[in-house]
């Protein structure tokens, strides 16, 4: 199975060959023996050509993997996606860049804008308190505030959409 690994500006093409519990990774520079054994939910002991790694897979995101403690952001594209991309289609779901969500549960203490306000990328848009710290959340994109879904003083769970910029 052909895949592509994308991370920042890097892109690696490879071919996964599975047999029993073992995996062979075919790359431009040669084949690699690969074995991942689960040691806890989301944690694997990996041997790749006898090199040893402990790898953590985040349950909530397919794009963040932790290798020997270091977080790695990557995108794993399979043949179907690669083919579509070759055809000029790209089925990677487009993330709505203007959706600002709470990264952790917390208390919204201050919202600096009202619906219709124009904001620039990097402008503070609201304050949130969690773990004894006040966190200033900045606008990820420039645009106008389309919707404010919470009120000051409201507590929100992780993932709650707070503001939409469009």
């Amino acid at each position, binding site marked *: 199975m052909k*895949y592509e*690994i994308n*991370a*920042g500006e*890097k892109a*690696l093409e*490879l071919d*996964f060959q*599975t047999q029993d*519990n073992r*995996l062979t*990774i075919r*790359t431009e520079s040669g084949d*690699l023996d*690969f074995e*991942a*054994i*689960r*040691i*806890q*939910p*989301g*944690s*694997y002991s*990996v041997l*790749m050509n006898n*090199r040893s*790694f*402990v*790898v*953590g*897979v985040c*349950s909530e995101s*397919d794009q963040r*993997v*932790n*290798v*020997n*403690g*270091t*977080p*790695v*952001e*990557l995108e*794993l594209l399979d043949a179907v996606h690669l083919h579509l991309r070759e055809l000029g289609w790209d089925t990677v779901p487009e993330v709505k860049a203007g959706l600002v969500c709470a*990264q*952790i*549960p*917390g208390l919204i203490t201050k919202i600096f804008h009202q619906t219709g306000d124009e904001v620039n990328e990097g402008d503070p848009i609201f304050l949130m308190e*969690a*773990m*004894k*710290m006040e*966190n200033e959340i900045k606008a990820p994109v420039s645009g106008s505030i389309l919707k404010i879904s919470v009120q000051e003083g409201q507590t929100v769970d*992780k993932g709650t959409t707070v503001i939409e910029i469009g």
Partner: protein
Amino acid sequence: MFKKILVANRGEIALRVMRTCREMGIETVAVFSEADRTAPHVLFADEAYLIGAAPSSESYLRYDRILEVARDSHTDAIHPGYGFLSENTDFAKEVTEAGIVFIGPPAEAIKTMGDKTMARQSMLQTEVPVVPGTEEPIEDVDQALQVAIEIGFPVLIKAAGGGGGKGMRIVESADTFGDAVAKAQRESQSAFGDGRVYIEKYLEEPHHIEFQILADQHGNIIHLNERECSIQRRYQKVIEESPSPFINAELREKMGVAAVETARSCDYVGAGTVEFLVDKHHNFYFLEMNTRLQVEHPVTEMITGTDLVAEQIRIAAGQPLTIEQDQITITGHAVECRIYAEDAAQDFTPSTGKISMLQIPDGTGTRFDGSIRQGMEITPYYDPLLGKLICWATDRESALNRSERALREFYIGGIETTIQFCRAVIRHPVFRKGPYDTHFYANHKAQLHEELSNASDEVLLVAGATLFQHIEKLKHGSQTEESNTSAKSGWVTVQQGRAHR
């Protein structure tokens, strides 16, 4: 000696204090919020009492409830840890009035040192230097120039009406002074509606260096050398070490004397920390005094072989210090890395969740003061400090190598932590070299974060292939568990002979 101590805190410091209590044969009482029912300090303690809901204003800061527990449990003394109620004068007073010993300084000393302005005023009465500057804001430029000349250039012009760098100017010489004051005043006026400015000596390449002191009830005061705390991010310490790679024996001696004098000036009793700023010319200035145990106290313990909590308890029980100043030596070198539940890649956003896997480093010269276990939930209610990794070795280089090894071995699955960020700092050539200052993080931020996000092809392949297998296995619902099948079958023979050792 006390029979029972209540620890009015949670997390790593509660556990730290209780460990020493148990070693001294003293029973321990924990208090906990609803979010902490199965927290490590509750599991460790001999007794544990629920004091309220998760928010600390409803639990760990409710000293009425804590005092009630102290009375109900027949506690002799209360250790406040750091944070929460540790520097609360009212709490210290109420504890004492309830006939319970407060393991900390007298309320009066907390009060004097708790207020920065009051502390500065108080220090001006002593020989201990404070950062030179104007006591009152000034508006007249000529008057300001006189002050600046007295202080000596470079000076810092600071807005009286607000902060955040607005209205702030560094002035190198008298030539440009008038112009700079005018600009600063205009900026202050427009930013805060208040044109008044202060003048303060500008410290070049400042180091944050603090001294640990111990004072008993019989007038004995000693210091236990310094801790170098210049690696900071948003005024939050990240890595501390002792001895400081910046100061020499002569300066250590002078600063130690100043630290002891500071403690004496406020009739201090207990363990405390005198913080100084030291500029690149080795001038040092009193910054503030912390009237409690410090997060980074273990580095001092490691190089002096003392147990500072045991000393606190003995002092509170009225015992004289068992060590004299000339018995305090420096053996080897110790480095502390603070491990926070924060995502360094996302501007240190706090990270919550369940610790799905945990591997804490250990071995020669490796200590972890923490309060976590596998399967535990990290909640958003409290400070995100998970614990501190302290490594000791005979010299600085070995201690840094050991820290790097231990950080590499440290694995916390399920949440994001600052382990790798600490590792990037420890590996940084400027940090390795030694005499870094408080601008270290600001100066090398980009480089540190690049190191964090820079994955090799090998690491990317491992990451991608593991992700592939993870998704494949989730799809087919067949998780390959640890291969312990061989433990159940395939038995052939067991190695003969007596164990060799």
